[in-house]
């Protein structure tokens, strides 16, 4: 009897929220980023961008029945899964949010997804989790990301190298989840495309001397050395030791190795080296920068555009489903993000909401040229560059 009562109550509750879904004056969106912890310097502009998108939708008066969108911030800590889970639990049960922008780091994002979001049927759009493991996570169609998976970078890297006619490379990676994940995805993509990786060796960050590591890499040989490391850490040490010992003089750099230090430390010593870094020549990036300036945050900081896009996608999907209930709008996210439809750039949310209200179709491009593929993650846009005369020069966007 008791069980029956509980079940009835639960059914009544869910039904209640479903009914309330369609016509409400208030929409609440959770923003769960690591406001404390290792990426605390990145998160304030990210959150500001997401809130800017919400403000824009509120002011347009076009969302649902002229609903107000209220952001609710929570701290994911980036590294502490239990703290992040508790924060997300609070967003859903006590703040009663209708969607979540976040989380940020891959580890806590996975924890919130499996422990809270799936259990409560809540939609999450992460702007910055790039772990390939999240592509296959059990998500009931609730999880999306506006950042590309690192697996995608492995494929892009393979295309770049294959186009240059490079068949044999040595590979070294920084010994952590990022380095290992990227190295593995690159190796499988490269070997799948007919290339061969002569050696895949880890290097530890923060050592003074990498000549032993380079000795092993040189013994294995290859046309060039792929360095999946960090520019201000061991990656630079490996490059330096390789140049010094004459083991390699051309390299390929994934995103962690991109930065002004590359020109400063090595200059023309690494002429002919190549690399790729997330980036787009879409006009959205420029308007994001301008909007950031106008609202007092840095629109070019990492994952800021992705955060704006994540918040925008949730609201556009709500409009398309004419409901703020995650169960209703989760299926609409892919529709609003991809073609066909009118292209929408940052700052045009009002226009987009109006088009959808009038029964039209939108293709949200946003700040980062969003194109959701596979299990709902960004296809990713990369800028391919080359070191020429000691300067980083853009080859093309892909």
């Amino acid at each position, binding site marked *: 009897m008791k069980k029956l009562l509980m079940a009835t109550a639960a059914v009544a509750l869910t039904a209640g929220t479903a009914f309330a879904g369609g016509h409400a004056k208030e929409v609440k969106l959770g923003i769960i980023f690591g406001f404390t912890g290792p990426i605390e310097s990145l998160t304030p502009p990210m959150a500001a961008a997401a809130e800017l998108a919400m403000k824009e939708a509120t002011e347009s008066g076009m969302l649902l029945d002229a609903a107000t969108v209220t952001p609710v911030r929570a701290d994911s800590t980036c590294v502490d899964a239990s703290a992040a889970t508790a924060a997300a639990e609070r967003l859903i049960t006590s703040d009663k949010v209708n969607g979540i922008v976040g989380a940020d780091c891959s580890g806590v994002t996975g924890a919130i997804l499996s422990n809270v979001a799936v259990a409560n049927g809540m939609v999450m759009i992460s702007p910055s989790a790039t772990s390939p493991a999240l592509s296959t996570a059990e998500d009931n169609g609730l999880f999306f990301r506006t950042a590309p998976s690192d697996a995608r970078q492995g494929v892009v890297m393979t295309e770049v190298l294959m186009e240059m006619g490079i068949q044999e490379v040595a590979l070294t990676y920084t*010994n952590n989840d990022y380095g290992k994940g990227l190295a593995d995805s690159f190796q499988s993509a490269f070997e799948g495309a007919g290339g061969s990786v002569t050696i895949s060796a880890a290097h530890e960050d923060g050592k003074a001397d990498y000549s032993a590591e380079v*000795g092993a890499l040189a013994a294995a040989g290859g046309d060039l050395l792929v360095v999946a490391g960090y520019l201000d850490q061991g990656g630079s040490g490996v490059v330096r030791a390789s140049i010094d010992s004459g083991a390699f003089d051309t390299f390929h750099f994934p995103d962690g190795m991109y930065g002004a230090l590359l020109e400063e430390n090595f200059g023309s010593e690494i002429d002919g080296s190549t690399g790729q870094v997330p980036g787009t020549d879409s006009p959205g990036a420029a308007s994001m920068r301008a909007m950031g300036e106008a609202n007092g945050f840095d629109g070019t900081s990492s994952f800021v555009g992705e955060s704006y896009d994540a918040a925008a996608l949730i609201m556009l999907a709500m409009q398309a489903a004419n409901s703020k209930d995650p169960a209703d709008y989760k299926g609409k996210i892919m529709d609003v993000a991809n073609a066909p439809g009118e292209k929408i750039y940052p700052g045009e949310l009002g226009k987009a909401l109006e088009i959808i209200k009038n029964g039209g179709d939108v293709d949200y491009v946003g700040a980062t040229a969003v194109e959701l593929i596979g299990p709902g993650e960004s296809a990713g846009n990369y800028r391919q560059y080359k070191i020429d005369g000691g300067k980083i020069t853009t080859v093309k966007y892909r």
Partner: protein
Amino acid sequence: MDFLNALVALSNFVLIPAIAYGSQLALGALGVTLIYGILRFSNFAHGDTMAFGAMIAVLVTWWFQSMGIGLGPLPTALLALPVAIAGCMLLVLLTDRLVYRFYREQKAKPVILVIVSMGVMFIMNGLVRFIIGPGDQRFSDGERFLISAREFKQMTGLREGLAIKTSQGLTVVVAVIAVALLFWFLNRTRTGKSMRAYSDNEDLALLSGINPERVVMYTWLIVAALATVAGVLYGLDKSFKPFVYFQLLLPIFASAIVGGLGNPLGAIAGGFVIAFSEVTITYAWKKVLKYLLPENLEPSGLVQLLSTDYKFAVSFMILLIVLLFKPTGLFKGKSV
């Protein structure tokens, strides 16, 4: 031709780096062994003393560079070396006055002094980070190479390149000079002889009128000079980062113990034994063997005994083997 190529590849990746690294370890181990021989405790603060001396050298080098003073092809850090040695001497004398002298007067057991030196280590560690920060600092300048790999290939027409960095050449030269000076001092001067006498038998030395405080002071001065030279050479050759000097403590102690604690000759031999084992065991021999072996015997794998991640484990293993089978070290030192 193949034989020459093999030899060049071996020199480039094994012999030259190991000789430079061995010289740096030997200088560090000499400091540890002197403290052990004369003050009778294992000085855990030695790595951070090196870091402190090197830090002063870095700061002074930057100052010289900003004024445009340099040595042409040689690194400016050589000019800064005397200042750095003086600064480091000041620091160790100060710690001796404030910390170690108290325990010496108490006739504290060596194990207590070891723990005290660990405390000193943490203080120095913090001091260095506080002044210069925990990050990487670049201070090398001048000509980078004596011979660069590309020039060597053009010169000889061999397939393998040989690179000798200025810092590597400098390391060996400076280490030889420092060791020669040290041995001359210990064997030929009155103070050196009294230091050895004090080390051999403290009571007998005191009876014959040797002033212990003077011996202790000279020991610290020499140790500070050796530590600074080792620290600066290591920083020039690799890079300056406080944490790295802390990590260097293990191979340095391993060298001193392998050679025989308290025996200066042993410290030098120990430094090279550790350096060569670390490098040869973690080197991938594929390239060298490919030149030497006939085609059908060419290895397909990397022929690497241990991955480079285990570099420090090599020092540990040698340390264990020596302590188990020859506790006094290769040269007759004091047992630990």
